[in-house]
Each structure stands twice: as structure tokens, then as C-alpha cells.
């Protein structure tokens, strides 16, 4: 009896031990599986970065290194390359100084005061961002160049438009909004009005506060903006191509393009890879350490605070309004209007009056496969717009902890690498399989614009309170359900924003497309540039209008929608997660 009980209890204990062990084993297996899944995901992301960024760069370096040290030296010290490097650095540095100074001044003048006109002023500053660089450069040449609109109407031409002055002016139009937006974000995140008020009541005047409190607080965003502007200006191909090449003014991106397009020798190819690599090094020197450093700083979690109330400063207000309106008219409105008029006018020498209007230019522009190219561009842009946010979300969601900084930096560097260099690297790396195909262009788009899929999603993810998924889990949601129900919905707006941004950038892309396209795979932007090379001014203008108009329309709609939603969201003090829930961008689910 006793023995039987003992045996029973022993069996029970053994069984218990067995279940415990089994449970432990299951748990262990599950943990191992989760770890393995995570490792696989991280490997996937790192592998993609390697394929899209590292392979092109290494290929570039391999060809360049093949020339040997003397070859590299010769390529860099040759008269053409030396001049191009000098031009690139000088233009990019000047643009950086001008754009950051003007962008900061405008942001401080516009963003620190309440007012209904702020949206219009912001649009005046940031609007040019939705115009393709090539189109704006071409539009400036039509508006302010010899035989341009101002020349014919008033006998005025902009001195030095074809050459460094014109290039710097147009690139500053693109750099200024970047600085403006960086400072605006910095003001919202860092410069709590109470900090400035504290300085005022400590006896500091308006300018002293600016010097001792506001600008020091904005140091990090200003540095980031400067790096971004420098990188964009140094890598720009379209503006120097349309305004510099006619005047014989070469920069590194135009040198790479023209060497690739017009010389066939392998020595020349080696030379251009060296120049492209030098361009990469230049840009990385400007951006790389900064991005690593910025990644280490914790995002500031300060809630948005109400703006400083202005004490009667309407006179200053009016001056700022007039300045911004004059700037927007000169920089974008007049050139774009000229472009439309040129597209509608029968011949280059005629005045743009209704008697001379015609739609023939559009017919001429689309006669040579323009329509197919337009569809191809839209398809490529759509593919990039779908892939980039998904890959961006993958990077944001999977790369955490110690992987976060390096992975984010890798994605950012892919954007920082000038398009010319990235395209040449991709040709060397993948050209033997994909040369002249649509796929190779799409590959380049995804590599280049991945960061725009990543940054908004990462920012939205950082804003989520840490307890969200925990609360969902405690409420009974499985991990996947928790992600689907409480993490993804607030990210949806960010992903849509990212998709829209990538679509615009890819649709307008010219630098890489001109290098990568083959017979029958021209993108629409390439068709426009070739049309301009052929000298068809009216047809070029017509195609440029077609390239720009849809994005401007969509941009205007999006601005209107965000304005509406932000206005309706400002009233009740709600958590940022739901802020995007209001308005039409993202209707609330019932």
C-alpha cells in the first residue's frame, strides 16, 4: 500500500518533472526561434543594404583601385577633374552658406508668430521642392536668360545665369527650404518659448536672446541642415547640366555624365570612376560623422508648446510677407509661368500672347515615345513608392538596440551618395546582368530613396509611448495582434507620407536615369533632357509642364489636407498618436 503510494507519487513527480522539462524545452525552443527570426530579419536588412549600397561602392572602388595610385592621382589631378572638383566644392559651400543663413532667418521670422498667413508663407518658401531641378533650371533659363521672357519684355537678363552664379542661385532655391524645415522642426522640438522668456526676464534683449539662447539651441538642427544642403548641392546633376554645361562650367556630376556619354575609352571610364568615388568621399566627409553623432543623441521628447505670443509687430510681419512673396515670385512663380507660356507659344521668337497659342508643342514632345516613357516613369515611381516605405518600416522595426545607429546610417549614406556615383557603381556591380533594363533603374531608385521610406516611419515609431504594446499584450493581444492593432495604425500616415515623397522623387529623378537607361527604357525625365539637347524649346517646355503639373496638384491637395487636419487637431490637447486620426487623410474607423 505504502509502496504503491510511493511509486505513484514518484511517477507523478517524474511526470511533473517531465512536463516541466518539456515546458522549459518548448519555451527555450520558442525563444531560440524568436532569436533566430530576429537574426534572420536583421540579416535580411543588412544584406539589402549591402546589395544596394555596398556592392555599388565596392565596385566603384575596385575599378578605381585598378588604376593604381598613379592612375588615381593622374585622374584627379588632370585639368578637367581638378577644375570640376574645385567647382563642386565652391558651389556647394556657397549654396550651403546662403541657404542656411536665409532659411534660418526666414524660419525665425515666420515660425515664431501666430498667424493665418503662415501657411502661405511656408508654401512660398518650400513650394519649389516639388519642381524637378531640371525643370526649374530650364524655366530660369527661359525666364531670365538671353532671349528669355524678361529680355524680350524689358531687355533684362540675369548676369551669369549660365555659369556659377545661376547654378548657385537655383541650387539655393532648393537648399533654402531644407534649412527652413530643419530650423522649424528644431524650434518645435527644442526651443521652448519659456527658455527665451527666461532669458528676456533675465535682462536680455531680443537680439541677445537670439545669439545666446535660440541659435545655440538650434545648433544641432542647423548642422544637420548644413550637411544636407551641402550633400544635395554637391550631388546635383540637373542644374549644373542645364545652366553650366552651355557655358563650359563643369562640376563632378556633369563631368561623370559627359565622360560616360561621350567617351568610349576604358581609361576615361577609370577616370570617371575615380571622380565619382572622390565625390562620394567628399559627401561622406560632410555627412557621415555627423549622422553617426546625431543618431546617438536621444530624440527630444518635449511636447509642442504654444508659440511665443507676439507683441504688436505687424510692421515687421508685413516686411517679411513682402520679402517672401517677392522671393517666391522670382524663384518659382515667374519661371514656371514662363515655362507654361513657352509650352503654349507657337515658336521661340514669338510673344506669348493668346494669338500665338497652340498645343502643337505637346504633340511634338510626345511624338517620339514620350507617352510610353511617361507610363514607364510612373510605374517605376510607384514601385519605388511601395517598396521604400516597406523596407523603411523593416529597418525601423527590426534594427533596434545596437544595430539601430549603424543600419540607419547605412540607409542615410545611400541617399548621400551622389546619384552619378551610385549609378556608375550599380552599372559596374550589376550591369553585366541588368544593363539597360528597367530593373536596374528601379534598383537605383530604391537604394537612393530608401531613407525617405525609413525616416518618417522611424520618427513615428519613436513618438509612440513605450507602454503601447505592453498595454495591448496585457489586454490579451498576441504579439502580432499587438503590432497590427496598436503599432501599425499610428504608423500608417507616416508610411503614406513616405510613399508620396518617394513617388515624387523617383518620378522626377534624372541623374541616375540618364546614366542607367538603355534603348527603350528612357524615363520621362530623360526624354525631356534629350529633347532639350536637341534644342526643341517649346517641346521641352511642354514635357516639363507635364512632368511637374501632377505633382504640384497632388502636393497642393496634400498641403490642404494636412492643414485642415492639423487645424482641427489643434483644439483639444490630444496625444500625438491620434493627431493624424483627424481629418481626411486617414478617416477614423468605427
Amino acid at each position: 500500500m505504502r509502496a504503491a503510494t510511493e511509486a505513484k507519487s514518484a511517477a507523478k513527480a517524474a511526470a511533473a518533472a517531465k512536463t516541466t522539462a518539456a515546458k522549459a524545452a518548448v519555451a527555450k525552443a520558442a525563444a531560440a526561434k524568436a532569436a533566430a527570426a530576429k537574426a534572420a530579419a536583421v540579416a535580411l536588412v543588412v544584406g539589402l543594404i549591402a546589395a544596394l549600397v555596398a556592392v555599388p561602392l565596392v565596385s566603384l572602388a575596385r575599378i578605381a583601385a585598378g588604376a593604381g595610385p598613379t592612375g588615381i592621382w593622374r585622374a584627379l589631378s588632370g585639368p578637367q577633374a581638378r577644375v570640376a572638383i574645385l567647382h563642386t566644392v565652391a558651389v556647394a559651400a556657397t549654396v550651403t552658406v546662403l541657404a542656411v543663413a536665409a532659411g534660418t532667418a526666414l524660419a525665425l521670422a515666420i515660425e515664431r508668430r501666430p498667424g493665418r498667413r503662415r501657411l502661405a508663407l511656408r508654401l512660398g518658401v518650400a513650394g519649389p521642392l516639388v519642381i524637378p531641378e531640371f525643370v526649374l533650371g530650364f524655366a530660369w533659363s527661359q525666364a531670365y536668360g538671353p532671349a528669355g521672357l524678361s529680355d524680350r519684355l524689358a531687355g533684362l537678363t540675369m548676369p551669369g545665369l549660365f555659369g556659377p552664379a545661376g547654378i548657385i542661385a537655383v541650387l539655393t532655391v532648393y537648399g533654402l527650404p531644407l534649412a527652413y524645415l530643419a530650423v522649424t522642426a528644431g524650434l518645435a522640438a527644442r526651443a521652448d518659448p519659456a527658455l527665451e522668456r527666461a532669458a528676456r526676464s533675465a535682462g536680455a534683449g531680443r537680439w541677445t536672446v537670439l545669439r545666446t539662447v535660440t541659435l545655440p539651441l538650434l545648433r544641432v538642427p542647423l548642422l544637420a541642415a548644413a550637411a544636407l544642403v551641402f550633400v544635395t548641392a554637391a550631388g546635383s546633376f540637373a542644374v549644373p547640366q542645364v545652366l553650366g554645361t552651355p557655358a563650359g562650367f563643369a562640376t563632378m556630376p556633369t563631368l561623370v555624365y559627359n565622360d560616360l556619354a561621350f567617351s568610349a575609352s576604358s581609361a576615361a571610364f577609370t577616370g570617371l570612376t575615380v571622380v565619382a568615388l572622390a565625390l562620394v568621399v567628399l559627401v561622406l566627409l560632410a555627412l557621415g560623422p555627423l549622422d553617426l553623432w546625431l543618431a546617438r543623441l536621444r530624440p527630444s521628447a518635449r511636447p509642442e508648446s504654444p508659440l511665443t505670443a507676439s507683441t504688436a509687430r505687424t510692421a515687421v510681419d508685413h516686411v517679411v510677407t513682402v520679402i517672401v512673396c517677392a522671393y517666391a515670385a522670382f524663384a518659382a512663380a515667374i519661371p514656371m509661368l514662363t515655362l507654361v507660356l513657352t509650352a503654349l507659344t507657337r515658336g521661340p521668337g514669338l510673344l506669348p500672347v493668346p494669338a500665338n497659342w497652340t498645343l502643337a508643342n505637346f504633340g511634338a514632345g510626345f511624338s517620339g515615345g514620350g507617352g510610353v516613357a511617361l507610363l514607364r516613369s510612373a510605374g517605376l515611381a510607384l514601385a519605388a513608392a511601395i517598396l521604400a516605405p516597406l523596407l523603411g518600416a523593416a529597418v525601423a522595426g527590426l534594427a533596434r538596440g545596437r544595430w539601430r545607429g549603424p543600419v540607419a546610417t547605412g540607409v542615410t549614406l545611400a541617399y548621400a551618395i551622389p546619384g552619378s556615383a551610385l549609378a556608375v557603381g550599380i552599372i559596374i556591380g550589376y550591369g553585366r546582368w541588368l544593363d539597360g533594363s528597367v530593373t536596374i533603374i528601379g534598383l537605383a531608385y530604391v537604394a537612393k530613396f530608401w531613407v525617405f521610406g525609413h525616416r518618417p516611419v522611424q520618427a513615428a515609431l519613436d513618438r509612440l509611448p513605450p507602454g503601447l504594446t505592453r498595454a495591448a499584450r496585457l489586454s490579451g493581444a498576441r504579439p502580432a495582434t499587438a503590432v497590427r492593432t496598436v503599432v501599425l495604425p499610428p504608423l500608417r500616415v507616416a508610411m503614406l507620407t513616405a510613399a508620396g515623397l518617394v513617388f515624387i522623387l523617383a518620378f522626377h529623378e534624372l541623374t541616375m536615369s540618364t546614366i542607367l537607361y538603355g534603348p527603350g527604357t528612357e524615363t520621362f525625365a530623360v526624354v525631356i533632357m534629350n529633347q532639350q539637347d536637341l534644342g526643341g524649346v517649346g517641346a521641352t517646355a511642354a514635357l516639363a509642364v507635364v512632368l511637374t503639373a501632377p505633382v504640384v496638384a497632388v502636393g497642393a491637395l496634400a498641403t490642404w489636407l494636412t492643414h485642415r487636419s492639423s487645424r482641427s487637431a489643434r483644439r483639444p490637447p490630444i496625444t500625438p498618436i491620434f493627431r493624424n486620426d483627424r481629418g481626411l487623410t486617414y478617416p477614423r474607423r468605427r
Partner: protein
Amino acid sequence: MVSLTPDAVSCAGLAVGYGRPSLAGLDLAVAPGETVALLGSSGSGKTTLLNGIAGFVAPLAGEIWLAGAVASAPGRCLPPERRRIGMVFQDHALWPHLSVLDTVAYPLRRAGASKAAAHKGAQAILEQLNLSSLAQRRPGQLSGGEQQRVGLARALACQPAVYLFDEPTAHLDASLRAAIGEEVARRRHADGAAAIYATHDAAEALALADRVAVLHSGRLAQLASPADVYAEPDDLTVARLTGPLSILDAPITPAAPGKSTITIGPTQTTVPSTTAPAPAGPTPAASAVLVRPDWARLERSLDGSGALPGTITEIRFRGPHTDYYVATPAGTVLIREAGPPHADCGPVRWSLLRARLMPREHQR
């Protein structure tokens, strides 16, 4: 009689707000050396008023005078840096890019001191506040209480004629709150500056201030000494803002001057009483009896003469004192007595020591 020293701060017919007035028709004068507490719930316009006095918001109407000179009027605003005002902010407002020493030296630098002199002066102020060990730290490396003391040190360095405190203890725990409060009182007595202290905490306002200005629904509801706003609130909202209370619904008959007879259930009691001024508009039909927790007492025996009937329904021990909730025929009355609980739930006798007769609020 005309006072020879002008008021440190004086507001006349003042309306302040962002676009729409959040406070209007405000008349308030603060004498040099005086502390006035602005007591009100959040959104009552305390911070807006402080921002108006500091010169960050121009008034919509009325004037602000500082030391006998107009500082603010509609469309005219003396810049904040020329007002001799030291402000302590609710969220500290410490500059993240400056060390504690540089932060405190900042006002001295702005007043024209050389860098060395400013550092020396800042060092002295930090020593007074026992903050010397933190001199080289950045705000991010300080605790909430330390940050607020640095904010106080910065305000001291301004050598102001007026201190403005914008809920300086709102984010601090109770012990730090008390420490900051003591520091504020000591400072002010030391340099004789006026102070305006915004808070939503009645205990803090009553303890710190010479006079309490109670703000609600966009106006100054009552301005009086702490004892008066506590014992003789003008209306029920002021009464609720200035401390715990019970309202009894009982018939009242006037007795001798300054006394009333109050009927609670079967028992009548005659107690010293004051009456709140009747509000403008239709005369209220009846009065309510306001009882502060220290205006009533539990009787030790159940058959005390003149004692009122009741039943203890709830007992809350609060450390230095105990709260008893006593259900009576006229409603529940809160009675606060020193020490730990000395009675149990159940029937009890209690007596009323004094009362404030309030016009009944209009039906909502």
C-alpha cells in the same frame, strides 16, 4: 491718504489673453515686500496674467504699472528685459546648452558684468542655495527639485523688484514643495521684493501669501488675507478653491448680531456666523451653511447638551489629523480632529463652533 512708495505691481482694469481675454476687469495692487498668491484651477488665467506682468503678452485692455510707471497698455509694452522681474517657471525653463553656473551668471552678464565677475556673483548665489556642488552640471543631469532651485537661483540673480512664480512646485513631490516654499519665503523677506505666486494648491497659497487672489471664470473672484478667504469666502467657488468644506442644508434663523440659530434634525444650535454678500441678480431663495472641517467637533459622550446628532460613516487617517465623515439630517459634514482616530463608525454627537452662511448657487 496717499502712500509715498508706489506699488511694486499694479493692474488697473486689466484684460489679458491670447486673442480672447482669459482674464478681464482685473484690479490688483501688490506693495513692495508683499506676496500675493494667485489661486485658481488650471485654465483660470494665472499664467496668462504672469506673462502679462512680465511683458510677454500685451494687455487687451487696461494697464500694468511697475514701481509707479506704466509698463503695459494696449499696443504699448515695455520689453521684458527692462522690467526688473525675476520669473520662476513651472517647467523650470533651464537652457539645455548652459551649465548651472552659466545659467545663474546669465542675468549678471546681461546686466553688464564681466565674465569673471558674473561667475563670481553666480557662485555666491549658488552657495546661498547650497547648489555649489552642481555648478558644472547641465540641466539634463539634475533632478526636478534641483532644476527648480537653479531656476530660483537664476531669478535671484536678476535682483528683481518683483518675483513671479508660475506654479514652481507643480511638478515636485510634497517634501520638495515644502522646501521650495520655505526658500521662497526666506528670499523674499531677505531682499524685500514683491512676489506674485501662481498656484492651484490652496494649502500652498494660504501658507505663503500675505494676500490671496482667487481667480475663476475669467475674473478676480476675491482678494483678501489667507485667513479671510478661508473663513469668509465670497461664494461657493472661492470656498471650494480655498480648502475643504461641507455644505449643510439647514433652516437658519438670525439670533443675536453675529450669531445664527441653525436647525439640524430635531436639534437647534446657535453659533457665531458671518454671511456672504448676496450676488447681483435675483435674490437666492435660501441660504446654505458652509462648515470648514475645523469648525465642528466630535463630542466624547453621546448625551452632551446642545450637541447635534449624527453617524460617522467613514474615517480617514491623514497623519497629523483624522477626517471623520458624519452623516446628519442636513447632509454629510466633514470634521477634522488632531491625532489618530479616537472614535468608531456609528452614532455620534457633534457640535458646531461657527458657520458661514452662503447664498445658494443658482440651479445649473
